[in-house]
């Protein structure tokens, strides 16, 4: 069963990682969900698919009052990212869903109505959470054509969606990357195939290199921290992407 791990805390400002579900059915890709809690509000990043909603909800509720959820950040439109939207709205109908303007009329197929969605323009935006300013950073074509990552300048955490994702073996349940060179082997095939644009990749690497990042938290696999963050950016910058087979 999924559990929420606190990966950052500074007084009333917390990041929770709901990661690594060993009990989920094997045919569903493992996902990480992140919750940014600040003051009286919380933002859920990539809440996941319908099938894992009970596990995510209960993990979140164990660490944080779910009625404090003010919004959902959907990095892009995939079902493993946001197909649980209708369920979160069932629990809290006034939730806002921040996503690329590109998906504003697609995501209602998963749930929600006109007033649910807050479209993010291509250049990104600031998302306010009880006084905290989070930045939606453009990551278009990595892999989705309308794609954003979320940067928290206070916690120095970058939620990087599918960038940094690794499809780890079932027996590897580490929350953080332990050995970069061993870990990155599980990320290589994924990035080569899923990331389709070399130009978009270079843009992203330049953009995030300018940010102060202590932790890069992806939607699949383990969290990069400390020097592994820059290691990952360098590795990604050098990687040939848009490759059908290695």
């Amino acid at each position, binding site marked *: *069963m999924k559990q929420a791990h606190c990966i950052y805390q500074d007084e009333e400002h917390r990041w929770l990682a709901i990661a690594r579900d060993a009990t989920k059915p094997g045919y569903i890709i493992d996902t990480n969900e992140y919750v940014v809690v600040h003051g009286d509000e919380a933002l859920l990043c990539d809440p996941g698919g319908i099938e894992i*909603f*009970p596990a995510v909800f209960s993990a979140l*509720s164990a660490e944080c*009052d779910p*009625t404090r959820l003010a919004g959902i950040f959907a990095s892009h439109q995939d079902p493993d990212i946001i197909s649980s939207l209708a*369920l979160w709205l069932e*629990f809290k109908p006034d939730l806002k869903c921040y996503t690329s303007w590109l998906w504003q009329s697609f995501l209602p197929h998963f749930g929600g109505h006109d007033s649910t969605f807050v479209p993010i323009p291509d250049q990104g935006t600031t998302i306010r959470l009880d006084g905290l300013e989070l930045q939606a950073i453009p990551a278009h074509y990595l892999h989705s054509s309308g794609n954003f990552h979320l940067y928290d300048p206070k916690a120095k955490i970058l939620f990087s969606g599918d960038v940094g994702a690794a499809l780890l073996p079932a027996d590897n349940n580490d929350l953080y990357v332990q050995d970069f060179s061993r870990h990155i082997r599980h990320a290589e095939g994924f990035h080569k195939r899923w990331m389709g644009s070399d130009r978009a990749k270079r843009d992203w690497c330049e953009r995030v290199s300018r940010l102060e990042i202590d932790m890069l938290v992806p939607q699949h696999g383990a969290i990069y921290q400390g020097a592994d963050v820059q290691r990952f950016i360098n590795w990604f910058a050098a990687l040939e992407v848009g490759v059908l087979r290695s």
Partner: protein
Amino acid sequence: MNAPEPNFHGIALRTGELARIVRVNEEIKAIVATAFRINLMALNAIFLAKRAGNAALGFGVLSNELRRFAQDLTRHMASLREMTSGSVGSVTGVVQQQRIARILAEALKLSGEGVPGAREARRRGAARLAEQQSRLRGLDLRLRAAVEETQQLVELGGVLARSAKIEAAYGGGFSAALMQVSTDFAEVIAQIKRSLEVLGKERLVKD
């Protein structure tokens, strides 16, 4: 959880609901096609009666009535079809709401006692489901009433077909041909009756 489990199964909707609507639609389509056949048959019967002249005056009147009957039947079936196509949306809504309610209930159960907001979420979900179920029940009642009304119309069609058979006996040299036409009418109307009986047994919701 202290809050009572909401009754998500007030109407037992399972996987077969959409399949049931498809069956209803198919039955309606079959009746519409048959009604079209009656219309053509009645037209032919009118021409035949004209050719038979004075000997088939009564048969001609009945053929006109049968044609009107076929047109009325087509109108009835069109309105039935409209109702069932509307019910696809309602059934889908209920099925979706039940699925959402089931998963949310599982999530709340996993979360243990006292999750803030749980009671309100349950109440909202149960109210929405009850509203959708009530809409579906209303549709089901209207559909049943419409089927009953159509069954009465078809009874009249049966009477007309029987009368046509009697009139055919007075058709002189055309008697055999008129008899054949009126027998065809009776068979087709019997077929519609059977379809309506099937339709009358179908329910959009199971109580």
